[in-house]
């Protein structure tokens, strides 16, 4: 019985992966997303030091071109020789990319800003999704399992939070915890802002998941195999660990992959409104907002808007297709259909 169940699990895992692999769009998206992540992570040692290097000369609003319009020495100022002693060649290589996407209105390399901006957006999305998954699934499962009045109260709380506009909640959260958190973090205002942003976005994204999980758990609770286990004297935690969570894992994973792009969009929107990440830290929304200002009826600095939006679109579409692929691969219903 034990080994049979494990076999079954392995079997379903394999079939899930093969089903995902059969989805070409999802596979391409996975590849794109993986390469974005790889590029962003490997360039981190440079971009973290270079994203705010301003050259207030001919580089201001310089159009994209292959060879950099700033000198290596100009960048060298910010290079700590001892730190890069082993990699001056890599640094030179990296510097070659400076003007690929043009320069912004302070002569900063747009490419070197988009890279960490993408990472920041992904971090915010990932963390928000993590918060949403942990809080949402715990809340939903607890409500369903506790049942009765507790269930009613918990779900009404979700309803109330749902009915509030999330921008308002984010602003309220920011106002309420910025000062105490900043002093708690010893005055690291930037870090505090990032944490608040993540908590705020995560704090409004878990509601849907709580509902989904509750519904799933409610229907699972009355399934014969759960009732059989309960009749055999299984406790709540055993039920959760053994029967319920493995069956809800599918929807949770799917939802999580869809929360990430949602959170990235929300962050972009908040930064666009000026209540997100504070300058000069770049995020994709912030860069797009700066770009919009530069687009006008007289002279268009198209690269300032095109590249940040391009990066945003590529990341979002890739994540969405991956999420869709996962749903098709894991969703028990579609799995049943294919099995039959």
């Amino acid at each position, binding site marked *: 019985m034990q080994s049979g169940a494990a076999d079954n699990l392995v079997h379903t895992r394999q079939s899930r992966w093969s089903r995902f692999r059969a989805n070409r769009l999802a596979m391409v998206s996975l590849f794109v997303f993986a390469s974005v992540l790889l590029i962003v992570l490997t360039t981190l040692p440079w971009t973290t030091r270079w994203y*705010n290097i301003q050259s207030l000369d001919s580089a201001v609003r310089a159009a994209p071109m292959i060879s950099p319009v700033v000198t290596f020495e100009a960048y060298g100022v910010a290079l700590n020789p001892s730190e890069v002693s082993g990699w001056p060649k890599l640094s030179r290589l990296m510097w070659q990319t400076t003007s690929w996407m043009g320069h912004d209105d*302070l*002569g900063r390399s747009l490419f070197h800003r988009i890279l960490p901006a993408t990472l920041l957006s992904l971090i915010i999305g990932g963390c928000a999704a993590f918060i949403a998954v942990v809080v949402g699934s715990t809340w939903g499962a607890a409500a369903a399992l506790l049942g009765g009045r507790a269930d009613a109260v918990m779900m009404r709380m979700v309803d109330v939070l749902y009915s509030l506009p999330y921008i308002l909640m984010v602003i309220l959260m920011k106002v309420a915890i910025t000062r105490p958190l900043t002093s708690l973090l010893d005055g690291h*205002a930037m870090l505090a802002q990032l944490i608040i942003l993540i908590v705020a976005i995560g704090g409004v994204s878990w509601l849907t998941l709580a509902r989904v999980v509750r519904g799933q758990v409610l229907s699972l609770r009355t399934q014969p195999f759960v009732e059989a286990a309960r009749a055999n004297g299984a406790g709540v935690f055993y039920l959760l660990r053994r029967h319920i969570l493995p069956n809800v894992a599918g929807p949770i994973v799917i939802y999580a992959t869809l929360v990430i792009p949602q959170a990235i969009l929300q962050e972009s929107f908040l930064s666009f409104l*000026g209540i997100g990440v*504070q*300058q*000069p830290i770049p995020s994709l929304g912030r860069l797009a907002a700066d770009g919009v200002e530069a687009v*006008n009826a007289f*002279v268009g600095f198209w690269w300032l808007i095109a590249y940040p939006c391009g990066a945003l679109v590529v990341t979002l579409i890739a994540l969405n297709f991956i999420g869709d692929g996962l749903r098709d691969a894991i969703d028990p219903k579609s799995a049943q259909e294919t099995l039959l």
Partner: protein
Amino acid sequence: MTAFRPFTWVGSTLAIALVFAFFTSTQETPADFRYVNSSGVHTLDPARMSWSQDFRVALNIWEGLTTSDPRTTQAQAGAAMFPPQLSSDQLTYTFTIREDARWSNGDPVLASDYIRGWRRGMEPGTGTDYTFLFTDNVAGASEYVHWRQRATGALTAMDRLRHGWDIDEQAALSLSRHPIFHDIQPHLPPSFFTDFDRDQGVALAKQLSASTLDWGDLYQRTFDQHVAKMDQRFSTVGLEAADDKTLVVRLLRPCPYFLDLTSFPSFLPCHASVELLRESVAGLTPEGLVVYDPQWTKPGCRKNGYPGLITNGPYYVSDWKFKRRLRMSANPFHRAFDTISSRTIDMLVYENTSVALMAYEAGEVDFLPGMDVPYDHEIAKLAQTGQRPDFHICKTFATYFMSFNCIDKRIEDRPNPFIDARVRRAFALAVDKNAIVNAVLQRGDLVAHTFIPPDALQGYHSSSGIQMDVAKAKQLLDEAGYPDGNNLPAVTLLYVPSDERVCQALARMWETNLGATVELRCQETKSFAEDKANHRFMIARGNWYGDYYDPTTFLDCFNTGNGNNDSGYSNEAYDKLLNRARNTANTTQRLSLLAQAERIIVEKDFPIIPLLHYSSPIAIKPYVSGLYPNPRLRFPFRYVSVDR
């Protein structure tokens, strides 16, 4: 296909008729000249206004004793003969109002109308930000305003007490400063004496709220006495109508720019009909304030037989759709009526400046008095290269700067390093102003090394200020105990969204040149203004537009205790120089004293880093004549003619 349905016909005919009626009713005859005001009119009450958009309307519908020349903005003849008689001690001006000066209903303009307008400017309750223009210049005004403020404070407190309400310490303290307190004091416990500080004020407020004195009687006595004395007290102010057409103004001290001041909105006249809208008993509210129904500036207000807003300028307000449009029509009783070519003027409201620019490009608008768009550098380029001859650059009488907080207090739980003048100086020396002006903004602004725009004032010569010097800056920081920026707490830079680029560049300069850590704090305008006024910042952006042609309009900002001194800067030597200049009649001597004062700010103490003097782009359609780019952005429309 379908049967004839009478209701469909009737319904659709009605609908078409309604739509037609709707569109024809909003079709209005376009005005002769249309300009854009980005935020709508805040108020048309000259005593309350402090926004340049409001000033622009006010100076076209009212006429001061003097007005300003459309090209140079120097004082020229207004409703009074020019120049007025000036006594030999330079303290008494005698204005003779023109015989043909008339209000928009035909009434002659009288000297008493000016006194009424000026009195509104200084009365507590009607006057606001610019009361100091009277108290600093007109003899007796300061004493009168002070007397009034003391009485209204006490009356407000007693009015609450007679209704059985509690009062706060502020009200208790103002009551304790009024003479009536001598009658109250014997009824209080003996520990209470005059001259209370704040803590005692709280205790006093409790005592007064709990006491069983006959507040109704005390209040009434004070109120009656005050009303009885009011006109007699006002007669001590140096304003006198010698006859219907002669206004004599006595000054506190010689004021070389007084004729410029009289063209300022606070010094506009006010028609007698406004008294119809004065609220409550004996012309005073229970708090002792003179209050008018705020509707008095509306052309359509007909309360109490009020005929609607009456003005004496070249135009009158004929129609005002709040937040949409304000129409001015030529005043048929104005002496220049026959020469006014633009008979109707529309002030259109476009909240978004980019949209306003689009409307201008589409020919919906003839004049943009400001083009504060995010891509203003492109506008400036088009204007400078002559590609768009209809874009003009106004070198304004204004300065953009960064102010330091000079007050010794903790900000966000960090010590404020800028209480040390050496640190302020180091930060000032490390700024590359040329890069800010020429690379970051690219608007063609003038790099500022001084607080007062150079060459704007005749006979005034600013000192040269300082040039960028990073080595010197580092040395100063070292002397102050922050070698290479070590030990320096993270510095916060407070600004509003439009300063984004400049502030990021500044932060980077301080980080690379001084090793400082700079945190950027972008806030929306309202909370920014609040934080700045309450000194909750380390470095904050600031700007100042000169109100009249004299160095004091700038330098007074750093006088100890001045309302605009957000830096909290205080230097005895500086205050003394300003005070000496105030009492110096000789112009050359006076200006040199003021120049010495300015040198303290821009070469020694640095409460601010002057960055630039604005160049403001404006757009005038080529078919419009009679509008001239000028440093104070004053545009009298009576000279405008439009030839489409």
